[in-house]
């Protein structure tokens, strides 16, 4: 009986303490960077390297430069588990602490934040994910999705397939299957693929895989029956590992299996072992950890034991992407500090900084990255930034990703009108008057 009372008492105390902790928010003289991460759950294999890259870059800035413009950075992680409801809870908590920009790394959470961003005046930077039509900066003032979007990516994949088939005219009659995560994220590419199917005359089959994606037997049975010439996949988390393994086990030619940029990191292919050899995926930045910036991170951050993960993880595809995300945000802060002549910038300032992103190869070189990513130029109307896409292939023996194509531009002439139409529909539904960008 005493135990029972004791446990109830202890629990009440813990919960009460939590309730009190919930109410106290602190104000700080640092630049507060919220970091929505998922280091638990079915998406953790992909969430962890991204979160590490994101954190490490800010740690590097703190240790090496003393923050940005002399102001230290404070990064606080909030665990979302890729769950939209928890993501919203995290958003509310971190917002109160003076967050400068959010990168939720989840299309579902991004959709939640889109209407809030313009009200709270905190930019949402969904780098290569989220709502594609947010690329129309006239309607989505506070949302950024450069360097490129799902729709552009899908068109780039079709372009790549066309080049492999010896010309776009050879796409006629080819069978292409799209295996997608059955959520807002996975569905994003479908309209583009449908429009392009009409234009180029390939047969498109859409195959949905339900969250979390461990069960794909029926999907791959359909693939065996259908025998598609090409497979395109929009997967995430454990779904990628399962799909690559299944493809290997049915002996599907791996070089005809193209993942999107969220389906092409080391953890996606290593479980399939040698079977994954030749699997390709798109990307908008280089793989590998041999850049000067990586050495810097190893030297400054990991040598002092301040690294967020294991040192061997530096240079994984998603690590690089988290790092890239941090670079875009920190450069936006720097730009805003210079433009507004203040050290303590706000979310509105950072929004300006993101919108005026204009980074060429010499800028990247200064940061210690050579031939890492194409040129990016964001503008008031175009939040997609005109990024370029490249295709990388997995070498199972060397355990590394290697480029198999040059940088190339998505079919922007087809995609941009689709983006504008969707953004206009959103604006109408939500009574938004588009900004004037001229």
């Amino acid at each position, binding site marked *: 009986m005493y135990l029972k009372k004791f446990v109830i008492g202890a629990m009440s105390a813990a919960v009460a303490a*939590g309730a009190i*902790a919930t109410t106290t928010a602190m104000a700080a003289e640092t630049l507060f960077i919220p970091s929505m991460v998922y280091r638990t759950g079915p998406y953790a294999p992909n969430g962890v390297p991204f979160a590490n890259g994101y954190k490490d870059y800010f740690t590097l800035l703190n240790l090496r430069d003393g923050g940005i413009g002399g102001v230290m950075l404070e990064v606080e992680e909030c665990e979302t588990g890729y*769950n939209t409801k928890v993501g919203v*809870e995290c958003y509310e908590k971190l917002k109160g602490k003076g967050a400068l920009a959010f990168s939720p790394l989840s299309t*579902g959470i991004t959709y*939640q934040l889109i*209407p809030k961003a313009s009200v709270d005046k905190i930019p949402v930077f969904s780098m290569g994910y989220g*709502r594609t039509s947010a690329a129309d900066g006239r309607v989505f003032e506070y949302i950024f999705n450069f360097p490129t979007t799902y729709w552009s990516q899908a068109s780039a994949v079709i372009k790549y397939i066309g080049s492999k088939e010896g010309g776009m005219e050879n796409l006629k009659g080819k069978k292409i299957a799209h295996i997608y995560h059955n*959520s*807002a994220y996975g569905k994003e590419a479908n309209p583009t693929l449908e429009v392009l199917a009409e234009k180029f005359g390939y047969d498109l089959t859409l195959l949905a895989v339900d969250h979390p994606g461990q069960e794909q037997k029926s999907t791959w049975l359909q693939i065996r029956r259908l025998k598609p010439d090409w497979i395109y996949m929009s997967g995430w988390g454990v779904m990628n590992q399962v799909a690559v393994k299944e493809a290997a086990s049915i002996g599907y030619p791996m070089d005809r299996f193209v993942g999107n940029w969220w389906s092409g990191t080391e953890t996606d292919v290593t479980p399939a072992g040698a079977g994954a050899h030749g699997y390709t995926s798109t990307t908008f930045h280089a793989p590998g950890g041999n850049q000067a910036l990586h050495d810097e991170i190893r030297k400054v951050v990991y040598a002092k034991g301040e690294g967020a993960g294991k040192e061997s993880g530096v240079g994984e595809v998603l690590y690089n992407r988290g790092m890239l995300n941090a670079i875009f945000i920190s450069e936006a802060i720097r730009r805003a500090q210079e433009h507004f002549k203040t050290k303590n910038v706000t979310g509105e300032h950072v929004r300006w900084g993101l919108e005026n992103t204009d980074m060429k190869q010499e800028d990247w070189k200064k940061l210690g990255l050579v031939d890492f990513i194409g040129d990016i130029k964001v503008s008031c109307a175009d939040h997609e930034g005109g990024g370029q896409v490249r295709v990388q292939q997995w070498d199972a023996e060397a355990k590394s990703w290697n480029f198999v194509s040059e940088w190339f531009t998505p079919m922007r002439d087809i995609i941009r009108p689709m983006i504008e139409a969707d953004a206009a529909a959103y604006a109408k539904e939500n009574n938004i008057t588009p900004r004037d960008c001229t």
Partner: protein
Amino acid sequence: MFYRETGQFKTSYAADQALLPIAQDRYALLATLVIAFLVVPLVANEYWFQAVLIPFLVFALAAIGLNILTGYCGQLSLGTGGFMAVGAYSAYKMTTNLPDLNIVFVVLISGVITAAVGILFGLPSLRIKGFYLAVATLAAQFFLLWVLNKFGWFVNYSPSGSIAIPPRQVFDVTVTSAHAAPVARYLITLSFVTVLALAAKNLVRGSIGRSWMAIRDMDVAAEIIGIKPLQTKLLAFAVSSFYVGVAGAMFLCFWLGTAETEAFDLLNVSFPVLFMIIIGGLGSILGSFLGSAFITLVPIFLTNAFVGGLGMQAVTAKHLEIIIFGSMIIFFLIVEPHGLARLWQIMKEKLRLWPFPY
């Protein structure tokens, strides 16, 4: 000393049949309502509204709905998430296609639509019982989400399949979408929950509620004393789905503003709501609130205590939270299998004798 009904004489039938026959209970309820309606809006900040209070209220209403079906009528259901999704998507379709319809009616009509769907899926309950019915309602869960996900009409052909509620007003105050002040969304949610919870409390102690309980306790005996199983069970499905549908509509309109079907899946909604009523107390309206508070708020408070209070890493806190939350569920089920509502009742009985127990 404080909680004693000595000297409270009932002089009319109405007084004898009051919702809360003990004066102290009435005062307590009134005080709670006054605090909830007047004090909380003044002191709470946006985080409390958005992350703590509104989800607690929305899930409390869903738990009341499931409690009517499972706790009072004894029909086990795992389709709560599917029914909530029906409510949310109906609300979305109505607000976007009939922009002039007041949001209060939108929410209520969403409940009615869900009730119709609930009756449809309640039909098998006449033939199958217990765990087998749970499987049948599980089918409803998957089928409804599949339909909403599959056909573009439900999401106005949005390419990503996610729905967003536009700004809508009640008495010129914006109550939906991110443009609404959190306090406005909180107050309208609270009003819905208060009215519907009082209605449910009244419903379950009248003849309808008693016939539900008769079916729950022994359906053959109930039939013999003149309760028609068909109507009674279907009514339970209808009323329960109405509540769950309203909760789903509120989930979309007043809480998140944006949703996709994944937000209503089995592990996100159906199981948690079932756990709410098991932990809170089967067959108890108060239990629905207590269970909702336990399931939605304890994890948040634990995480905040670890991260904000003790300065732990977010991921360590998450792992600890899962461990502690799980052990708490097991602990409460061992010490009080009848739920938190029963714990409260025991406390009240002790309070009556305090400070001189015999």
